[in-house]
């Protein structure tokens, strides 16, 4: 029996911890185990979760993206600004679609460029995306002039806050993104290449893998997902807001690391990030329901990141 527990624990550590946390909160946190609260948690985690799947690919490929929080804000502001400027001329649906396409295109381009800057000038993505973190936030403020841009048609806002068969609409996006990224990482040669590139770039290069394409592509995919998340947030709050998603990069990276992905690259799973995202969502929700002070919540979230890394180290030894 102990052997069984040990095997189960080394193989599915986060799944088991998540289940235990869930059971604990169900008994201890008032109002946790209600349909409304469960849906609320789901809605809260989807926006960061969508990005986290892309971030998982970036980190496995041996890079990092710190600009996702600002990217979310910028994407929301871009679509809001385009809606504000062109709704009269071309109608609301066309303006929304063009706005979404432009917002996504900007983030994809920035992601790919970040990878190429790494290739051409050997600038670590840590630095490029740290610069983008500030620049994109500034750009978002320049677009909005510092005020929320409430320019959307009413039907667009239901995309962020509405329900479909009783489930918040963004949750469907989250599930689709999970499925697609999982498939890419597990069942395509591109996914295999991401692991090889992160595990040993030189070995991957000498095996004929185009490592800069792979790295740039993961950054580009994350850019697209960042923009999608930004559009959904804008739809949810009904405006383009330059202060949205502040500090998200840390939560997103935390979810990826809690899910067992190695910051050194080459190792990690989309499924693990899925668990990490759920775990973080339930911890935050549980602490709120248990009336833990907001300041303590910061402390706990930070401690979780460090704890996850130490925990993975210990697990590695056990295996």
């Amino acid at each position: 029996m102990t052997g069984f527990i040990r095997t189960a624990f080394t193989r599915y550590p986060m799944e088991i911890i998540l289940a235990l946390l869930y059971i604990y909160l169900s008994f201890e946190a008032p109002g946790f185990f209600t349909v409304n609260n469960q849906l609320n948690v789901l809605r809260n985690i989807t926006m960061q979760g969508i990005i986290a799947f892309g971030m998982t690919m970036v980190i496995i490929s041996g890079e990092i993206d710190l600009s996702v929080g600002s990217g979310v804000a910028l994407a929301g502001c871009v679509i809001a600004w385009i809606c504000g400027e062109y709704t009269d001329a071309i109608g609301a649906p066309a303006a929304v679609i063009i706005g979404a396409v432009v917002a996504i295109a900007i983030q994809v381009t920035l992601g790919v460029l970040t990878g190429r800057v790494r290739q051409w000038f050997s600038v670590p993505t840590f630095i490029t995306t740290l610069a983008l973190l500030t620049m994109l936030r500034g750009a978002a403020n320049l677009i909005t002039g510092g005020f929320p841009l409430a320019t959307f048609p009413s039907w667009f806002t239901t995309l962020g806050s509405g329900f479909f068969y009783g489930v918040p609409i963004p949750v469907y996006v989250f599930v689709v993104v999970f499925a697609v990224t999982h498939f890419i990482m597990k069942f395509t040669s591109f996914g295999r290449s991401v692991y090889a590139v992160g595990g040993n770039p030189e070995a991957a290069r000498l095996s004929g893998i185009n490592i800069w394409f792979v790295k740039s592509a993961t950054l580009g995919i994350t850019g697209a997902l960042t923009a999608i998340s930004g559009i959904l947030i804008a739809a949810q709050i009904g405006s383009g807001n330059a202060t949205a998603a502040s500090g998200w990069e840390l939560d997103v990276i935390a979810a990826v690391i809690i899910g067992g992905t190695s910051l050194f690259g080459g190792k990690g799973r989309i499924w693990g990030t899925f668990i990490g995202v759920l775990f973080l969502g339930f911890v935050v929700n549980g602490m709120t329901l248990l009336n833990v002070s907001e300041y303590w919540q910061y402390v706990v979230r930070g401690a979780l990141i460090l704890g996850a890394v130490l925990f993975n180290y210990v697990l590695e030894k056990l295996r």
Partner: protein
Amino acid sequence: MTAGRIEVSGLRKAFGPTVALDDVSHVFEPGRVHALMGKNGSGKSTLVKALSGALQPDAGRMFINGREVSFSSPADAFANRVVTVHQELSLVPELSVGENIFLGRLPFRQRLGISTLDWNKVHTDARRLLEDMGLDIDPRRPVSSLSVGRQQVIEIAKAMAFDPTVLLLDEPTSALARAEVEHLFALVRRLRERGVTMIYITHRMSELFDIADTCTVLRDGRLVGSIEMEGATTDRIVGMMFGDVARATRPAGEAEQIGGDVVLSVRNLTRRGAFEDVSFDLRRGEILGMAGMLGAGRTEVLRAIFGADGFDGGEIVVDGMPVKQPTPQAMRQLGIGYTPENRKEVGLVQMLSIHDNLCLASLPVIAPSGFITRSREAPYVSRQIEELSIKVGDPMLPVSTLSGGNQQKIVIGNWLNTRPKVMFLDEPSRGIDVQAKQQVFEIMWREARLGISSVFVSTEAEELLEVCDRILVMRAGRIVAEVDPSTTSISDLYGLCMEEHAAEDIVEDAGMTATGDQ
């Protein structure tokens, strides 16, 4: 400065079942330059490590001036004024020459009651030391502003600051240009006049005649003998290094007909500072050897053809089609595979499984559409495991769990899965056991029968003679000879790899054709 007569007696060191040093006894007389020769794995570096305290012998004794010493660490060797200059530079490039010389024991002085660095003393002491050695180098210059040759000289100056009686020089010229070598030799002669005992390791035969007084030869961990350089000949030394080795040969009937068509043709390939004017043709099913010492430029040539590194000029033609811009992707597409010399670092992704490493290069072959499943890869994995007889428990285990020989086979299998026409094998036999080596050779022969050509780089002359159909010899970045293995002896080939005048003698003797180079 006192003279240091260093004596070893019955020195023995084994690593597991391999005996690296076996009952080595010798006296290194003071005030002379003692060359230490031997091919790779002869025990040279083990002996140097024992003398410098970097490793401890299992048995045997060491004496300095008749007094028994034992070094349990490099610090003990320093204390006995036995100082080693290692092959790799150990200088800090951004620091000044003076600072580097006295690093770790910089002088301080009291200023306003605070202990501060005494820069004046650093630089005057350094200047005196350098002048003493006949060197005109400003001790305030940063080391990074000096040429590699000068840096090597600073390395020796640093060693001299310890006032050594015995100086071990481990291939000090391997990275130096000819003029720089002359400077270094002048310094070595000066130190000899002052009575320093020097033990000098080199691969370059001609240097022995320039600088050494005696030559001591090791073979398979045993001391073969020691001769005075006065009156010594290259043949004699090479003979001592190799002895009478019976040559293993390719099994009868293995050397199949080589096709007439040229699959790979290289013309005048040049990269400044690495290799120059390299031209050769590779025919279908041919195993072409590339002989040479470390640093002769063989790896660089292969990597340039494969597109891993760039080159300045020349032409690469695959199947009659010139390759404009070789990249590893493009060359893989054209049917060329490359197994790098340092498989641990760049041949494998250690954290991935055996399974994944066997499919690394062949993803486009296994999954032309880009979609892939484990079950689709499985036949490729099991085929290589079976055909290369790789000892594997579970293919999903990390590749790092395998032995060196099996890891090497994984690297080869990874490329065989791409169905190549040409394989570049860079030192595939390094660091693997005898049986695994033999298996790697058999793989090459089998692939040759199937029409796959190989370029085989090795530092071991006997391996090349055993395996290849034809051997190119590279020296200092050039192809200097082409030999037929069936009519060439090990010591002839080894001599060709080493140095100009030695090589020319041998070429004349054996009636071979020397190409390129003068």
